[in-house]
């Protein structure tokens, strides 16, 4: 039982981290997009 719980925890830990990394990378992608748009508009 305890083994089961640990395994589920490990799996959800990995999932949580993957989600967060994806969110963070999409933030950076949006940043790059804004920089490009602003470059065209202002530069």
């Amino acid at each position, binding site marked *: 039982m305890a083994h089961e719980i640990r395994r589920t*925890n490990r799996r*959800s*830990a*990995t*999932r*949580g*981290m993957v*989600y*967060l*990394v994806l*969110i*963070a*990378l999409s*933030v*950076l992608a*949006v*940043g*790059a997009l*804004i*920089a*490009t748009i*602003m*470059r065209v508009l*202002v*530069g």
Partner: protein
Amino acid sequence: MSTMLRPGADDLKLIGFYLGKVLLGLGLVMLVPLAVAVATREWNAVSEFAIGASLCIIIGMVSDGMLATRRQLTWAHGMVIVALAWLIGAVFAAIPMYLSGRFSHPLAAMFEAMSALTTTGMSVIHDLDHTPIAEDFYRHLLQFAGGQGIVIVVLSLFASGGSRVASLYVSEARDERILPNFIRTARFIFLVAGTFLVAGTTALTLALLAAGFTPSRALYHGINLFFASFDTGGFSTMQASMLYYHSMAVEIVVMVLMIAGTFSFGLHFALWRDDPREVLRHLETRTLAITSTGFFIAVCYGLYRAGTYDSVEAMFRKGLFTLVSAVSSTGHQVNVGDTYLTDWGVLAPAAIVGAMAIGGMASSTAGGIKAIRVGIAFKTLVHDIMRVLRPDSALVVTTYHAGRRRILTDETSRAATTVLLLFIGSFLVGAIVGLLYGDHDITQTMFESVSVGSNIGLSIGVVNPDMPKVLMAVYIVQMWLGRLEFVAVFALVGYVLSLARRRSHA
């Protein structure tokens, strides 16, 4: 009558008992750099940490034996303990730092310790580039201890289970035992931090290897960078901060870690439970997304107009990195301090100051006013406008999403706006004292004051090893207030006042 207003000898013993436990923990933390110093044969550092650790551990054990009491821990005690823990913790954490001889005076060592424990990241150390490995590791480790510590405190004490983060005072559940909550929360937080520690350090070490570091140096810098980034601290191993690495890969990994660090543990928890939609619906994420997008557009506009950078790559590496560093309250620098004054024009630094003031999410290691308070303040404004526009008989109900759908109450609004005002007050006081002591203008002192008061760590150059002592003391108080979001410190002040009143009556 709560114990808060009539403290007795038992209450003081209880507070001393738990402070002893905090010092015992700090002593154990010091054993880690002690082991590092032995391994790297830095004998001076060995003696510093041996003295610091033994002092903390002895006091901790003595208080454990002498101050045990049957009185139960209440929320009021908890607040007082937390406020004192960060203050006394900083004093004791400063001991090995001062013994290293790298600080001008004891207050400077305490500034550094407070900066580390509150995850601010401002540094007044002399000759950082030649600091022994163990001493440098210790500074970074303190950020981790202070950072994870505050998250546990906020989640289990201030928020009583994470439901009332926005409330100024926890008015209910006062006498409920808080320890089980504490332990459960602590376990989850260290699970998340541990997972990120392994993954983040690995990613950083690989990026540093690719940048040409030797494996041992890559690992050493990787671990320190992880502590400084995930705990949104912002210390760095080298004086040049992130500029030292000249590596896009390192900067991207650090940005990802900073963003992960600014996420509240409520959202971490939602993601672990496979509920990514919660992130999109949460008032705090939405507020942060909207304000940060606005600030980044302002930064880009300001920098392109000032002609500072003209490529998208430079904007990404300088502009976006600095903004993420500001919003997450980390304070890693990709610019030399003066650059904000000399090259950045007016609009871009102003946007950075705005981002620093708002800071990250509540119940994370990020500092600042916090996005949830800004979001609630905005909802309150909309709510009030709606009330004016609708007929008198109409019932106006405003809701927001934070974990679940909530109704905006007057109490929540008042608490959020009060803390928001207190933060602004702290920024102003710091800026004015900066003007009185030292020869900087209002732009510089405002930038620095917001950075210190929000526990950010970006510096325009006012903070330096030889800054005036009064200003240093004010900044220490600002860091302390900002980290504890005023509440716990006010509880402490109230407690001390009631003690004094009791004495005078007796």
